[in-house]
């Protein structure tokens, strides 16, 4: 018996080992005979893989002489990219998040897409949201367009309508007194947001104190002890930068840039009176009343998809998290409730390597005797990605808003889940709000950017903590003694950031 079990276990283990011989992420081989093969590197997430499959299928239908070959970026984005740098073996096209391209575009690994645009009458970058084009530069002085923005990711407010439908206002009507989502939508602004937060908080607190008095609708919606009012993601730059600006502050002040004479301690404006005032307002308005919870920043698990928050500040791709959580509540969207809203995107870049590769099956460039390089074909692919057809294919996945302005009010993305949802809020201009591309961090030396990003996040985690603020918040923030605890923390983080900036420059 012992022998039998041993042999069986050995066989099972051998079979397990053999499974490693096949790559589960590798796409089935397809016939590339007589065709130009273009390699496109994408992340291993199901959304990214599915997005590329959609583009590939549509593109190959149009360009029967080209095959798109999917290359999975192993590990995290930067690990995979650093490996490509080390081996010099970049795919022709790589996926890039808008906030991570600078490290590679500034080092010459990507091609400037303006060159292709200038030689192509069928395309114009003017068709894409300008705030997205702003994210394609690697610093504030750069004008290059280093990747093709694929989607428009503006921070909005995800709303759990089941919760709001069980929250009465002082007039007895649900939706915190507004009666319906439509009415709330009409009245939506910063003040309305805080007003609804107060009503939701009141219900949660009452229900926590008196669990027997919870109505069925409130219980069903999750308005019980432990539920949060806002899953704010206040430790995420597109959210905190917009909030800080709303209250008159700025974490990074690019107006202080002065070339070689730049005083970096002024550019890093995390400790100016204006910015500290903004922190204080955030604390007063959101944290002190209990609308956001500090612990939400650590767990890594979002509360909203799990019916543990009424609001969520996030972008369209987060629908994927809601789907993953098999959420059953009624979802809808409202604008980000502050004067600024962070906007970003992801997209595809053509690598320098692509320009060095020419397929034996490549056609001759129109009007020349030269053969088309892989970069030329990659450009055709990128154009397809931002064509109405390509954007529609991506829109079917539900997790992306088209980067093409002409698709603001049309396309498959507006039908995802239900055409009745307030999809428009992802793109429409709000008269009291300005959209901002959160890419100021690129103004710092490359080797200091990560430290600045991480320490800015750390500051934000202290900004919402009770024990760093005095009871009397009416004293001017210029009185550092009165606010010594919070200034102490800010100074500590600023020192770390400044050290890294100095270290980066001292080479």
């Amino acid at each position: 018996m012992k022998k039998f079990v041993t042999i069986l276990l050995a066989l099972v283990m051998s079979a397990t080992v053999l499974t490693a011989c096949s790559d589960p992420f590798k796409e089935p081989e397809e016939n590339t005979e007589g065709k130009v093969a273009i390699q496109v590197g994408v992340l291993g997430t199901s959304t990214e893989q599915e997005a590329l499959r959609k583009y590939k299928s549509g593109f190959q239908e149009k360009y029967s002489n080209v095959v798109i070959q999917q290359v999975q970026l192993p590990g995290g984005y930067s690990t995979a990219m650093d490996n490509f740098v080390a081996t010099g073996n970049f795919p022709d096209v790589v996926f890039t998040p808008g906030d991570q391209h600078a490290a590679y575009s500034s080092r010459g690994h990507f091609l400037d897409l303006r060159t292709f645009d200038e030689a192509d009458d069928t395309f114009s970058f003017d068709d894409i949201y300008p705030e997205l084009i702003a994210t394609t530069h690697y610093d504030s002085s750069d004008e290059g367009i280093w990747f093709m923005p694929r989607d428009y990711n503006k921070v909005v407010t995800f709303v759990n309508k089941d919760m709001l439908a069980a929250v009465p206002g002082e007039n007895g009507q649900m939706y915190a007194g507004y009666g319906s989502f439509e009415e709330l939508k009409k009245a939506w602004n910063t003040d309305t947001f805080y007003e609804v937060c107060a009503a939701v908080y009141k219900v949660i607190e009452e229900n926590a104190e008196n669990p027997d008095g919870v109505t069925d609708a409130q219980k069903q919606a999750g308005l019980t002890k432990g539920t949060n009012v806002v899953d704010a993601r206040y430790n995420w730059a597109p959210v905190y930068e917009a909030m800080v600006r709303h209250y008159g502050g700025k974490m990074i002040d690019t107006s202080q840039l002065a070339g070689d004479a730049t005083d970096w301690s002024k550019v890093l404006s995390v400790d100016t009176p204006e910015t500290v005032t903004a922190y204080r307002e955030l604390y007063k308005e959101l944290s002190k009343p209990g609308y956001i919870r500090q612990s939400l920043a650590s767990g890594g698990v979002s509360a909203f998809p799990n019916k543990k928050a009424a609001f969520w500040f996030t972008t369209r791709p987060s629908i994927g998290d809601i789907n993953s959580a098999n959420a059953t509540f009624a979802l809808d969207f409202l604008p980000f409730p502050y004067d600024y809203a962070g906007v970003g995107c992801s997209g595809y870049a053509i690598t320098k390597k692509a320009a060095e590769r020419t397929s034996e099956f490549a056609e001759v460039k129109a009007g020349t005797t030269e053969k088309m390089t892989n970069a030329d074909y990659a450009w055709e692919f990128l154009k397809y990605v931002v064509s109405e057809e390509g954007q529609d294919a991506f829109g079917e996945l539900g997790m992306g808003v088209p980067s093409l302005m002409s698709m603001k009010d049309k396309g498959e993305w507006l039908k995802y889940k239900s055409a009745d949802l307030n999809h428009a809020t992802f793109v429409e201009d709000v008269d009291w709000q300005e959209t901002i591309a959160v890419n100021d961090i690129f103004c710092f030396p490359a080797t200091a950017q990560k430290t600045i990003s991480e320490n800015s996040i750390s500051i934000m985690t202290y900004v919402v903590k009770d024990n760093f603020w005095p009871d009397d918040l009416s004293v001017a923030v210029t009185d550092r003694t009165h606010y010594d605890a919070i200034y102490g923390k800010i100074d500590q983080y600023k020192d770390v950031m400044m050290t890294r900036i100095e270290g980066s420059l001292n080479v």
Partner: protein
Amino acid sequence: MDKNMRTAQKRKILEWISSFAFVLPVVIGIAVFTLTPMISSLGYSFTRTYTTVAGMGEFVGLKNYENLFGVYAEQIWDSIGSTFLFTVISLPITLVLSFALALFLAKDFKGVKVFRVVYYLPVMLPAVVSGILWSSLANGSDTSALNVVLAAFGAKPFAFYDSEKTAFFTFILMGLFTIGSSMILWIAQIKAIPDSMFEVADLEGANYFVRLFKIIIPMCTPMIFYNLIMGIINSLQIFSNVITLNIEPAGKEQLNFIVVRIYDFYNSTDLSTACALSWVLFVIIAVISALTFKFNKWVYYGEEV
């Protein structure tokens, strides 16, 4: 005679070749995966090389080392301090506890194998899984597993990893769950002590403590030495348990060990500084290991014949 000598010589050569063939894979492995990266990193540490730029950057001499003990000095000394503090606290606790556990589990009683497996299981958890697990078990929220247990006993929630005051202690506590790896080695060593020694001790009327201090511990000194050396090296290189933790910055900042700092430089694309700091750590470990070897007279390697 000549023929016999030739055969003997041939056999010797064949033995030499076959023995060399056996060690060749290890030699190749060390050359390719240890020595080459070491030499490369030493080279990088004298240049200005970025992870985002192909090849070796320009030669800058000792600039990266100057930066480490100049611009970055405060942070680096802070990291060295944290790493040593962790080693000084955690290593003795780990050694003593794992030895005590081994003393208990080296006995033969019913179910002892189950206990051994249970204590060894946490060692088999991948660092990533362990990090995720501890992040949710020991965060400061009311709903974290450990705080739910504390609440059941009427205690107030404890901050664990969420506070700068308690994160270090929590990390040391977390490390104790992997004492199983040392424990297994202790058990092997204790079991290898000849029974005759204990029989003689019994005849002489020695009690448990005499047996422990006069037989077991002296006979285990080679393993104490091995665990000490490995413990020092592993503690000074502590890394994966930290980066896999998904905790508040307040807590994570307290776990600013040297290798975590190296990883931070590397992730900031600053390969040169990361390599320079790696070599600083290498020298520290080499010096401490050398000193430990130098003062190992207390280790009993058996009677010399």
